[in-house]
């Protein structure tokens, strides 16, 4: 399927709002790869990421009629997706706490992803990204991977622009230190 340009995307969005299923399918096709990439980089686990993306699209479907026609869609969509990712992280944390205090071995979800390379600089990047606090990770991914401006990021996260700038800066500082350490060790 061809990528949608801005005008076509707007038209598809409006038709999907009216309940047109074909248009909603095109919307899912268009956003799915970016959504999955974001969720995987937030959660570092493919199945959790797919679950988060599916939940997000179902919520988009349920609430699309209430979405404002003149509002930008990307921040709205990523806000829903970001919330689903946070919910899954919270669930995972609770699950981890239960297992940590029980006798069962802990199966670290964050260490299990078939899409993360097992060697080299790419692995170091993913490992460094996974070590960031979720707020910094989210801010960094929105700004430097999804190319959002700070106004859009504020809609996604609900945080102020100054807070987001600080999160991105701290994320870059941490990545720089971690990747430099990795380079030195090699």
């Amino acid at each position, binding site marked *: 399927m061809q990528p949608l340009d801005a005008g076509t995307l707007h038209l598809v969005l409006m038709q999907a709002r009216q309940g047109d*299923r074909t248009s*909603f*399918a095109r919307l*899912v*096709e268009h956003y*799915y*790869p*970016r959504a*999955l*990439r974001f969720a*995987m*980089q937030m959660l570092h686990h493919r199945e959790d990421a*797919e679950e988060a*993306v*599916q939940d997000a*699209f*179902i*919520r988009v*479907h*349920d*609430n699309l009629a209430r979405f404002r026609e003149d509002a930008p869609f990307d921040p709205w969509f990523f806000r*829903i997706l970001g*919330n689903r990712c*946070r*919910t899954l992280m*919270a669930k995972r944390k609770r699950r981890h706490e239960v297992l940590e205090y029980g006798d069962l071995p802990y199966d670290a979800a964050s260490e299990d992803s078939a*899409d993360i*390379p097992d*060697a*080299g*600089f*790419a692995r*170091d*990047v*993913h490992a460094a*990204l996974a070590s960031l606090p979720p707020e910094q990770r989210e801010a960094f*991914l929105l700004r*430097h*991977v999804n190319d959002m401006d700070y106004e859009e990021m504020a809609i996604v996260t*609900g945080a102020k622009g100054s807070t987001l700038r600080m999160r991105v800066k701290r994320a*870059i500082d941490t*990545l*720089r*230190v971690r*990747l*430099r350490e*990795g*380079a030195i060790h*090699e």
Partner: protein
Amino acid sequence: MNNQTPFGPGLEPGADDDRLLRQVRAVLTPMPEVDRRAIADILNAVAHRKRTPWQRFVARLEPLAEWWQFSVPPVARGASLAAGALLVGFMARGVIMSPNASVGVAPTLAVQTDSQATVPVADPMRTTLQTVEGGADVSALRIPTQFVLDARDVPTASRVSIVGDFNDWDVSNAPLVLDRGVWSVTVPLPPGRHVYSFVVNGETWVADPRAAEATDADFGRPGSVIIVQNP
């Protein structure tokens, strides 16, 4: 996949942010492989999505719940919950302690009386049952009491109401209904002595011809007395 490290010997942190970002972006920007079945699952789930009104209501609350969970600081959440709990506690206490609380708890029972009764009556057996079921303070009970007036006693009446100390002598508070030659109305009254009068056509006060006359009638107008007994 890019396996080169972005830092060479002699590179200082901070001087190479742009290069670092380019390298990191190059790793993170490529799209993952998409499993078409996952997209099909989403479309299938959406196509067969049928929800009850309750589920739709809950779905509308979910964004609010997520905002509450992720955007409200924990201290503010705790404070809000505590304030909410206090408010609910005060409201519950107000309902439980209110003198009128039993009005809403105890059912209002229709009093079965003879339509030609000459005085207002209440059924003590029924009100006793009320007390047991409602579990309310006896002094807070109101006993359904029927007032009747023979239409032959007020042949010119087009409308009749009852006024008394129990409704602040408000003419519009308790209108009587004419049925088979009898004007009647049932009013919940607290136990005790009450003075009352019928008001014909909104202006003429008429004492109940079949009740004791009140010697202390207010306003210098005719009045009658009824004693409502404790169950």
